């Protein structure tokens, strides 16, 4: 669009028309330039949004839209996307911490007896949390017996089994008596297969474990006859 009407070659009569034509071409050129600029801005903004949103949809909530690289008219959208991702991240973290609390509860079952029922799939992270929780509870309640109940755990891998053994050992180091209850046949086979010596008392059910624990602290469960 660099071509223009050569005004010097035109006679006076057509000069005005030539000038107008030139102006029109210049204006069109200007407009096309502006449109092109806008297109680049838009595509830059969209590709920026796209990369952030696609990584967010894959579960990575750490990337943000770089607002400095986006032109003014798309900044608000970028900000909103950032806010949305931040809020999602916050909510996810809240849920994760809640889940962590709920997944390894340690309860005082009786005077000097604490128990921790484990439910669901055990990961080595969860096993580590469980270990910390039960050790802390033992010292907090001055417990003599600590029961770990794994009735709700269907399978464990070698890493978790190793952690479990370590937990039992640590309980012994504290001076308390570890009791492992509710082993499923599968888990019992796993433990035997790994070839670790379980130097802790194991009982088939939590009830048996409680009976043993009460006996350990010189208490007993007794049937009483009621006069009808």
């Amino acid at each position, binding site marked *: 669009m660099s071509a223009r009407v050569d005004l010097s070659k035109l006679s006076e009569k057509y000069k005005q028309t030539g000038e107008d034509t030139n102006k029109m071409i210049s204006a069109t050129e200007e407009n096309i330039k502006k449109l092109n600029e806008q297109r680049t801005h838009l595509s830059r903004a969209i590709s920026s949004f796209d990369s952030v949103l696609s990584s967010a949809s894959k579960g990575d909530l750490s990337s943000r839209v770089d607002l400095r690289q986006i032109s003014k008219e798309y900044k608000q959208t970028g900000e909103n996307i950032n806010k949305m991702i931040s809020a999602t991240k916050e909510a996810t973290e809240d849920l994760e911490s809640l889940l962590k609390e709920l997944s390894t509860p340690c309860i005082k079952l009786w005077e000097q007896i604490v128990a921790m029922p484990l439910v669901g799939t055990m990961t080595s992270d969860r096993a580590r949390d469980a270990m910390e929780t039960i050790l802390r509870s033992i010292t907090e309640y*001055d417990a003599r017996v600590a029961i770990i109940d794994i009735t709700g755990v269907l399978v464990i891998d070698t890493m978790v089994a190793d952690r479990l053994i370590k937990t039992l050992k640590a309980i012994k180091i504290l001076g308390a008596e570890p009791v492992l209850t509710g082993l499923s046949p599968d888990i019992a086979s796993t433990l035997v297969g790994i070839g670790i010596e379980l130097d802790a008392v194991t009982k088939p059910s939590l009830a048996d474990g409680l009976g043993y624990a009460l006996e350990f602290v010189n208490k007993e469960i007794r049937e009483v006859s009621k006069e009808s």
Partner: protein
Amino acid sequence: MVVQLQKEALEKIKRTGATGLLIDVSSLDIIDSFVARSVINIARAAKHLGTATVITGISPEIALTLLQMGFRWSEVETAINIEHGFEKLEKQKRALKKHK
């Protein structure tokens, strides 16, 4: 300091003829392998002197450290708190007497 403790504790056992030794570590925040080894040695040496020995008040942090060090902690009796420690001392003393 721990070396001095070892010396003093053992000498005092000899002098007083104590039948039980209770080492409480509940005010220790962390423990290194040297201190851990020394405390175990005190307990072992006291056993040789015919004294029942119990270590009490081990925190979860210290328990994990000891676990990682891989000591054979089972040769030393441990207890949750001092009250529990005394109970275990009595039990050990009875066992020692039977042995004699």
